[in-house]
């Protein structure tokens, strides 16, 4: 997947998790948590959804890599390059 495709997937997953989530005007470099008012339980859903869709295992120690939209894309790019 390209960086843009990965970004779209992450945004789609977030919207799926949170019916009130407004993802249009997100600052890609700021923490998603603060912008969307989500907690660690919601972040686990992003991890689990990636696991379900792409059989991607993300160890708990790597969760901070998913903090912002940009860092998500950076982290996922090499891992989803063959998808």
């Amino acid at each position, binding site marked *: 997947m390209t960086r843009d495709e990965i970004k779209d997937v992450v945004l789609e997953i977030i919207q799926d998790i949170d*019916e009130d989530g407004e993802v249009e005007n997100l600052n890609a470099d700021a923490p998603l948590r603060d912008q969307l008012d*989500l*907690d660690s*339980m919601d972040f686990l859903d992003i991890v689990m959804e990636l*696991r379900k869709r792409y059989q991607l295992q993300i160890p708990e120690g790597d969760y901070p890599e998913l903090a912002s939209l940009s860092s998500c894309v950076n982290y996922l790019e090499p891992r989803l390059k063959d998808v």
Partner: protein
Amino acid sequence: MVSYDQIIIGGGLSGLAAGIRLARFGFKVLILEKHTIPGGLNSYYFRQGRLLETGLHAMTNYAPPGSKSAPLNRLFRQLKLSRKKFPTHQQLRSTIYFPDHHTLSFSNDLDLLRREVKRLFPESLDRFNALVELVSSHDPFVDRPWASARDRLAAILDNERLTNMLLWPLMMYGSCNEHDMDFDQFVIMFQAVYLEGFFRPAGTIKDFLDTLLDHYRALGGEIRFRAPVKRFWISGGLVGAVLLESGEEIACRQVISTAGYPATLGFMAGDNAPAEEAARYGGRMSFVEIINVLPAECRKDLRGDETIIFYNLDEPFDYRRPEQAVNVDCGVICFPENFRDLEPGAEFQLRVTHPANYEVWKSFDPVKYAAKKQFWADRSSERVGEIIGNYREKVVYQDVFTPTTIEKFTGKVNGAIYGSPVKLKEGTTPLSNLFVAGTDQGYLGIVGAMLSGVTMVNKHIFKEN
């Protein structure tokens, strides 16, 4: 042998929530329920064409849609249920009723309780406000040793009557300990009841359970009813398979038991169950509930713009298992129709709950048992009638359930609905792929039970896979 990723024992609210969570992310999951319908402690039954609810008086933790960090809304997100499409009815108000005409009313707006404290105990208002501050900022989910809520409240409020009045609904709604409760548990309950408040879903508990069950099945989850578990097959410190009473064996990678810790210990030990170990986890607090159905025209003659009345006429006040079968000097009076925007029907219900003694009820033979049910239902109507007005002769239908009924239908040892006095906050057991959720893990009420199922799955299954 049939095989699943996870087996969940118990189709109550914690088991259904855990199941939805697992099925949502593609795990192959099976719920085993021994009863013929779901719900566990919060279920229903039919008598003479009427649907009667068990457990549910009101749900706690009210939050309007939109406030994302509220437990209720977090729960809905975790289960992928739309909070916006879940209509709710808030309570009107509820009252704590003590001797000397001491009453405190509260609603889902904390200001009412503040005004009531100011009216009854003006000297204690500042201290009450300090308590609210403390409870709002205290994180009760940090693992700490048991601490007496009474001792903390004595220091904060310095007013024994106010302390007892505030404790009473919280104890009746969720304390497995007699006399006192854990301070963290007190904080959880204070937030759930006084800061967030009571509501009920539109429709019955059956509608709510059906919604959860349909959702679970649509996500691919499976459930079997009339499927009681006999024991686990254990090897190398792991549960390898679950043996049903029917003789069937089902293999699995992990088990989440919501059957309560004493029953779970029984599954682990099979025929060699250590009775003393199980007894340590058996709670002592159980209850009798009397469901009265009354014609609508009696409504005007009874006190009752309240949703729930928590009354105590005992002096000195104590939350405990009574010596006799039932203590009618204290209890909870609930009008399940008294929620905002509910249309009155041709009949209304009056549900009364009193502390009861399991051992005494267990000792009655069937004939005596039936007679005692009637005897105590009558004593209850007399005592409650003193508070809300006489209704005894007007009851068109009445049903009583006792600690032994609860034990029979829910599997809770001693009919202890609030479970073990020793809580397993981490949810872990001596077997590394067996976890407990629900009442004995420590969360209470419908929202609490469901969050327990969710949290145990997140913590022990998702983070390990």
